């Protein structure tokens, strides 16, 4: 039995002369939460659109839920659900009716049956009290949750979520994380695109970093952080950085009015000692996924010492 929920082999997509995806190869195991990270235009959405049967690839092979995305796209679609990033409500239907319509179009039968499923899905995401309110009156975050409820109600085995926490407040994000972990525990495979690196680090079993259409790194969040080679980081006020001698072999990134220096522990500790001896304010911490990500795809205003 196929152990992969998704298996991509040399998948490529060209738009005219532009290569949006270049021979993308990786697999996602069943039951994983897998995140696709990358800058805007990196190719994440193109990959998701191909994997969900919305877009034809130019070349390569891709199977989802064990079915070929070109030859068996109907079978693929039976096993997936997608939560698009931008979808808005077209009519004045209630949240419950919106999900019911989605389920009926998917092939579920019965108004009462779909209502029960829709209400259960809304309950799972904590929106049951808004089931009968016009979806247009829901906040942006609530509407996004409603789309997630559609995916939950579908009972698909592979869920594709395109930036699911965009527009959500902190509490709603945490609630969303709980829901996604619950879905994982039920055996669902979740493919996530997100710009929130803390979210990817917290939720993902594995991550693929896509840059300019190429998968430049794949692994667990901790492995990606470890592979970055950074052991420690220190944040220093931009105005103080000239007072310090920054040794070679560290990475220096500008962050608003701060400068972040990343590198091996012993080198960073030397910088910290210098700063403390000059009574400068510093903040020291271990590297996180954001540091590793910026190292992989390149940060604005970065310089290599």
């Amino acid at each position, binding site marked *: 039995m196929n152990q992969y929920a998704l298996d991509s082999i040399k998948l490529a997509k060209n738009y005219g002369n532009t290569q949006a995806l270049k021979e993308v190869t990786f697999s996602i195991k069943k039951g994983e939460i897998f995140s696709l990270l990358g800058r805007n235009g990196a190719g994440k959405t193109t990959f998701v*659109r191909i994997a*969900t*049967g*919305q*877009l*034809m690839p130019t070349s390569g092979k891709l199977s989802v839920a064990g079915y070929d995305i070109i030859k068996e*796209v*109907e079978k693929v*679609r*039976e096993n*997936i*659900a*997608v939560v*698009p990033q*931008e*979808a*808005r*409500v*077209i*009519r*004045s*239907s*209630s949240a419950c*009716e919106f999900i*019911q*319509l*989605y389920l*009926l*179009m*998917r*092939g*579920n*039968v*019965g*108004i009462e049956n*779909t209502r029960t499923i829709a209400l259960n899905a809304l309950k799972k995401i904590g929106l049951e009290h808004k089931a009968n309110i*016009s979806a*247009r009156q829901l906040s942006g975050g609530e509407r996004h949750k409603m*789309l997630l409820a*559609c995916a939950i109600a*579908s009972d698909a085995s592979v869920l*594709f979520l395109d930036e699911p926490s965009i527009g959500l407040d902190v509490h709603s994000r945490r609630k969303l994380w709980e829901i996604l972990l619950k879905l994982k525990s039920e055996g669902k495979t979740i493919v996530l695109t997100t710009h929130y690196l803390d979210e990817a680090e917290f939720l993902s079993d594995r991550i693929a970093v896509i840059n300019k259409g190429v998968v430049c790194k794949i692994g667990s969040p901790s492995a990606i952080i470890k592979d970055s080679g950074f052991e420690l980081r220190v944040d220093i006020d931009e105005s103080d950085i000239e007072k310090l001698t920054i040794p070679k072999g560290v990475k220096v990134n500008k962050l608003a009015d701060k400068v972040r220096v990343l590198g091996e522990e012993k080198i960073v500790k030397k910088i910290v000692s210098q700063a403390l001896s000059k009574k400068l304010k510093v903040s020291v911490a271990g590297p996180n996924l954001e540091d590793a990500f910026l190292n992989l795809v390149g940060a604005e205003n970065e310089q290599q010492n």
Partner: protein
Amino acid sequence: MNNRINKAISIMQGAWIDFSSTAKGNPFFLLIPFTYPIALLFVMYLNTGTRYLGLLLVGAILAEIINAGTAVFSETGSSKLFFKTFDLYVASPTSPFVYCMTISASWILMNSLAIFLFLLLALYFTHAGLLAVIATILIAIETSMVLGFIAFSAGTRLKTERDVFALGTILSFGLTLLSPIYYPITVLPPFVQMLSFLFPSTGPAILLQWAFGILNVNSNLVILSIANILVYLIIGIVAVKTALWREE
């Protein structure tokens, strides 16, 4: 067989949910279909009395059926380019046929009050009988389906949001005014009569006018009308099968 029956039930139930939620949310939607035909009827009544009311009412019935079909164009285009709910359905087991039929049926329900009232008035003014009622039902099913298929397929090919509104209006204009909906085809010069058969609404219009006893049709017109309906039925099926459901 069971699968097909379930699919048909799901389509009807989906259409009902879509229609009823819209009607509950904004009852004015039910009145919009009346506006243009009533304006036309009013102006004609002031100028010619009740003489052409039967013809205009039959035209109004067909115009509502046509508008229900062309609304699929705007709805598909706007859900793809503006509301972005289209992706939700493409990335699901929903087939283009089910999506298109659900929206078409929903719009027919939306216009059904107007169709029903215009039908009653048309029967009153033309003294038509059961044949007219049956013809109306059959033509409503065929025309809304065919136009829905073609409009859906065209809607999936739209590139910009502006095209949704501009082309939707032009489409309705062409089908309800350039095609002989509100007037008998026989008033047109012979060459223009032939050209009018390029519109999918011409065949249904002639047969409906004949069923209401408004138009005396010769066998040539009947054959052309049936041919027009059959050709567009094939075009509609091909159109829905070649819709841009998955982009290249």
